[in-house]
């Protein structure tokens, strides 16, 4: 038992207010939302907006309905939209950010000028970005008119309003596809373990991968998540939203990567050059591996921004365009327009779980790293 020194007491006292405030306004309200999501708040119009609504506990009914109800197709499409948005947003921002950082790292003249330009969109709010891009992506104006300046016919693509959908699949195929994806990752790990000489581990992983793959091609095909067929896919209208989001955030990843690139000691590159490595090889074998940790951090930060995205979509396509909607928008409409507060809370909890699956492993790894240090 360590002694309660004056110093320690001050520290605790200093931390206490923020702990209390966090406890109430973050964790308390998470708890309340979790509770509301298990009630029927909103079902009975007489209770929905009452000053002190009487709520009945209904268990996981709201969640079951969201994932399997006939009337909840929008929620399921919103989840798919969120998935595709997140994937392309991450790939886009990381790729573009890295490219810009590498270009700026070539000792170009006026680096500070370009750095500011690239970083500037990050200083805007998503509402501003959304409004500007909404104008630019109007089918009759903006970017569709760009080709006319060089004598080409104007673009025809209806950026935000097209109802085209590609990569269509049935909702019930999701378990099979997920297990196939996991199998692929396991196979990759197995291959790396094999090359690293850990043959037993490689064999176990390879076996698991084979098992998962076999399941997804046999039993996995007959899984029925819904009593009716339901086709989902990637809505092309999302491309406009992704463009705007990448435009806004890639400057930020550029800054992260640039800082990281500057942190790589020149000696390492020179040593590689002495060993006869070309410029490409230096990046491939020296620079990129050292960018691993910052990539992970950037993915976490961007990933949770992407899962929570609301304002950008609200500003660009409004609340009711289902083709570009995400669960956060639906949550807002359900709770504050449709008076279905329990449904809104359930959607909020689904989002919390999604964000937690990203954040918690990250926190766990980084905290463990700190302890070791």
């Amino acid at each position, binding site marked *: 038992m360590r002694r309660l020194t004056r110093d320690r007491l001050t520290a605790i006292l200093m931390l206490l207010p923020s702990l209390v405030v966090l406890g109430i306004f973050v964790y308390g309200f998470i708890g309340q939302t979790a509770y509301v999501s298990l009630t029927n708040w909103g079902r009975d119009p007489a209770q929905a907006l009452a*000053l002190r609504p009487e709520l009945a506990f209904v268990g996981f009914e709201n969640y079951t309905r969201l994932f399997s109800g006939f009337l909840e197709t929008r929620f399921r499409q919103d989840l798919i939209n969120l998935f595709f948005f997140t994937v392309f947003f991450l790939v886009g921002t990381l790729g573009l950010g890295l490219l810009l950082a590498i270009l700026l790292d070539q000792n170009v003249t006026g680096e500070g000028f370009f750095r500011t330009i690239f970083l500037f969109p990050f200083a805007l709010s998503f509402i501003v970005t959304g409004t500007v891009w909404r104008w630019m992506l109007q089918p009759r104006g903006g970017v569709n008119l760009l080709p006319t300046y060089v004598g080409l016919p104007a673009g025809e693509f209806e950026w935000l309003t097209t109802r085209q959908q590609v990569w269509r699949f049935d909702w019930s195929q999701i378990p099979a596809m997920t297990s196939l994806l996991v199998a692929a990752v396991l196979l990759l790990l197995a291959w790396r373990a094999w090359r690293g000489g850990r043959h037993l581990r490689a064999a176990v992983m390879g076996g698991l991968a084979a098992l998962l793959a076999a399941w997804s091609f046999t039993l996995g095909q007959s899984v029925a998540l819904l009593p009716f067929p339901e086709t989902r896919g990637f809505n092309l209208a999302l491309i406009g939203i992704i463009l705007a989001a990448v435009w806004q955030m890639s400057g930020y990843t550029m800054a992260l990567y640039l800082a990281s690139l500057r942190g790589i000691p020149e000696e390492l590159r020179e040593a590689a050059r002495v060993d006869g490595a070309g410029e490409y090889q230096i990046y491939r074998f020296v620079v990129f591996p050292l960018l691993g940790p910052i990539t992970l951090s950037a993915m976490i930060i961007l990933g949770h921004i992407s899962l929570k995205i609301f304002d950008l979509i609200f500003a660009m396509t409004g609340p009711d365009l289902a083709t570009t909607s995400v669960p956060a928008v639906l949550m807002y409409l359900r709770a504050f327009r449709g008076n279905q507060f329990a449904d809104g809370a359930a959607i909020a909890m689904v989002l919390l779980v999604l964000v937690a699956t990203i954040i918690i492993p990250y926190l766990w790894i980084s905290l463990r790293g700190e302890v070791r240090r």
Partner: protein
Amino acid sequence: MRRLLAILIATSMTLAAANTVEIFSWWAGDEGPALEALIEVFEAEYPGVTVDNATVTGGAGVVARAVLRTRMLGGNPPDSFQVHAGDELILSWVVANRMEDLTFLFEEEGWLDVFPQDLIDLISTPEGIWSVPVNIHRSNIMWYVPANLEAWGVEAPQTWDAFLEVCPAIQAEGVTPLALGEAWTQLHLWESVALGVLGPDRYAQLWTGELPFNDPAAVAVWERFGEVLDCTNADAAGLSWQQATDMVVDGDAAFNIMGDWAAGYMATTLQLEPGVGFGWAPSPETAGVFMVLSDSFGLPVGAPNREQAINWLRVSGSLAGQDAFNPLKGSIAPRTDSDMSLYNAYLQSAAADFASDRQVGSLAHGTVGSDPFRDNFYLALDIFLDSRNAQAAANAAFAVAQQYGLGR
């Protein structure tokens, strides 16, 4: 000294509280001047009382209603707030016991005689009368520019068949036959089509449950709606209602079906003369029917300045207040005794129709259908836009009605 200061601050705060009244609405921008005019009438009548004009802009009140909900649930109601007369008022706020009965005010001011009975029915339950209507808008109007129609050799169609007949000819001119905007304007078009296809009796039966949404007659509405959609602009989902109206004014589109706030927009903002710069007709097959929506102010239970809020309602329902507000808002006064010389040509014709036409309620604007029903009805609309399958959309609408209840 310090105690004196505290007393001073406390008294000044109570004084300030007693002399302000907070009015919550979504009237800003183009509609702001109308509200300002109403506030001026109030301040002239009750000098010394400050009006705290709490407007929340955006999206036909979507944002304002969200803010209102958080305030009401948090036990912090404004003194009076804007709400659509009809099911939006009754099924959200009255059933939850959040409003005060205003029957006493209607009796004191003699409003039972000057407001039309149909309208009073919309804001009443057997337990009382729950708000004061300040304006009347009509939803089922088709707008056009007379000179353009003449140039294209087209007349405003009386029936949907006639519209679909001229549709290819208009398209051949490189013009969109019917300008359409974002989702709520599509719902707006749907209700006009439904009224035309079903007629007023059966349309009204939709909201009592006597005509189920999966009835073949209701399926036929979706089929007709699909045919009409084929004559609209492809980029509809990205346009606001003003942009859709602009298409008609600019000659990019022949017609637009929108509520008569479009007349206010064209007459006041775009400075067009009613009847010359723009023309109007009831949307096809709805002549003689007035699809009504009305904004009203209510008195929430626990209003901080109840006395001043009642005074505000007194002014909102008064002849002076309504005749100051409505000509600027581009709507007609619900009162039957208003001075029609203050209103422009369009509004005079609307008032004449309002007095003689059969009245039905608007779904898109909260007169019929509960908030949860409307919120989820967009799903049926979306299913239809995706699949163009009338039966599937009708089934979805039926399921929504089953799950969330229709109306009263």
